[in-house]
């Protein structure tokens, strides 16, 4: 009977939803009470079983591809498909191989930008957006040593209005890179750094944000590294942070 009040809250405790101080009291009780500890174990098993059983459906490759095609930014949104095809055909006839090369690189470029936007949004939505927390570049930079196959410099931020929140690993097309998150006036900006040669698409120097993306984006190549800055901060803020990076590199 003594344990009834504990047991009534056992699920909430196992969901880690009781206040922190109460959590410690609960921990102590569960460790010392055989009945509650057996019950807690059973409930954890039940949670795990539901979790395993709940991950049941996987989208088909065909559906994934269809969705990617629908969501990927379209090169000329204002044109109808027929017009676009006709225009493309005409350009190919006129410009020959030069145009073919352009058409080959553009979808790749847009896909890279979409993936960068996805990484940015998914990270901010995460409950732990950074793996190394710091406002000090001297803590964040060494953290990447041994984790990514290149080194890069971080800018000095004094009096710049920018704050370095932290960093984490990022992968683009199975290529490891650095992901840094900066804050400026409560807006978050993601900075991604990858090796240029490992990226799938050719990206023009100083490519600017495609209009289809709901963010401002700036990218450039420097010292064999490709930098992407993306966020909902103003284009001017993103440009200022880009300047600091360019000066530091």
């Amino acid at each position, binding site marked *: 009977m003594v344990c009834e009040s504990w*047991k009534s809250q056992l*699920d*909430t405790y196992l*969901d880690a*939803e009781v206040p922190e101080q109460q959590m410690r009291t609960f921990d102590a009780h569960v460790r010392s009470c055989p009945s509650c500890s*057996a*019950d807690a*174990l*059973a*409930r954890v*098993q*039940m*949670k795990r*079983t*539901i*979790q*395993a*059983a*709940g*991950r*049941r*459906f*996987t*989208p088909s490759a065909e*559906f*994934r591809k269809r*969705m*990617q095609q*629908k*969501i990927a930014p379209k090169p000329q949104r204002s044109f109808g498909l027929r017009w676009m095809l006709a225009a493309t055909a005409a350009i190919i006839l006129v410009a020959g191989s030069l145009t073919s090369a352009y058409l080959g690189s553009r979808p790749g470029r847009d896909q890279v930008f979409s993936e960068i936007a*996805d990484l940015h*949004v*998914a990270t*901010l*939505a995460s*409950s732990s957006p950074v793996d190394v927390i710091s406002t000090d570049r001297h803590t964040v930079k060494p953290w990447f040593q041994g984790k990514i196959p290149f080194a890069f410099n971080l800018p000095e931020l004094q009096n710049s209005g920018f704050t370095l929140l932290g960093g984490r690993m990022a992968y683009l097309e199975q290529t490891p890179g650095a992901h840094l998150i900066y804050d400026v006036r*409560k*807006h*978050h900006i993601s900075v991604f750094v990858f090796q240029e040669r490992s990226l799938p698409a050719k990206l023009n120097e100083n490519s600017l944000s495609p209009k289809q993306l*709901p963010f401002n984006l700036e990218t450039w190549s420097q010292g064999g590294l490709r930098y992407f800055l993306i966020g*909902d901060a103003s284009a001017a803020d993103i440009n200022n942070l880009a300047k600091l990076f360019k000066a530091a590199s």
Partner: protein
Amino acid sequence: MPHFERLYNFACWLTHDRQEAEDLVQETYAKALKGFSSFRPGTNFRAWIYKILRNAFLTSRTGLKTSATVPLDLEGEEEALPTDKETPESILLQRSDNQLVQHALDELPVAYREILLLCEVEEMSYQEISATLAIPMGTVMSRLSRARKALRGSLQPQFAKRMN
């Protein structure tokens, strides 16, 4: 596409139909892209996009049918469920397998099924669930508790059969 696989899994659980789930996910992303300006940075993106999916489901043919036949608000409903003491879950779960649990989840009212999936599979906090389902925190806790009891109640006869 953030959360693509998980949204699809959740959509399949809600609709019980892969084609309908695909339509639902497609609609969700279309609405999310169209209404991205309504997403406030710093708020929970996951809860926001799951809410879009769930609202799309509720207005779909299957969703309307479900809400017409099963009351979404089950808070007042007290079911005669076996208590935890009657059969130790540990014994039941030793014999559990995915198929049995999946079948039991399938049979649950959608309001119980979705809250269990958001809590256990998506590992959402109560606050995220509250935002996704647009219900108060207290309702999250009581509905979750009833959903768990309902699932246990549904599993017990299955396991009892196996034990005999």
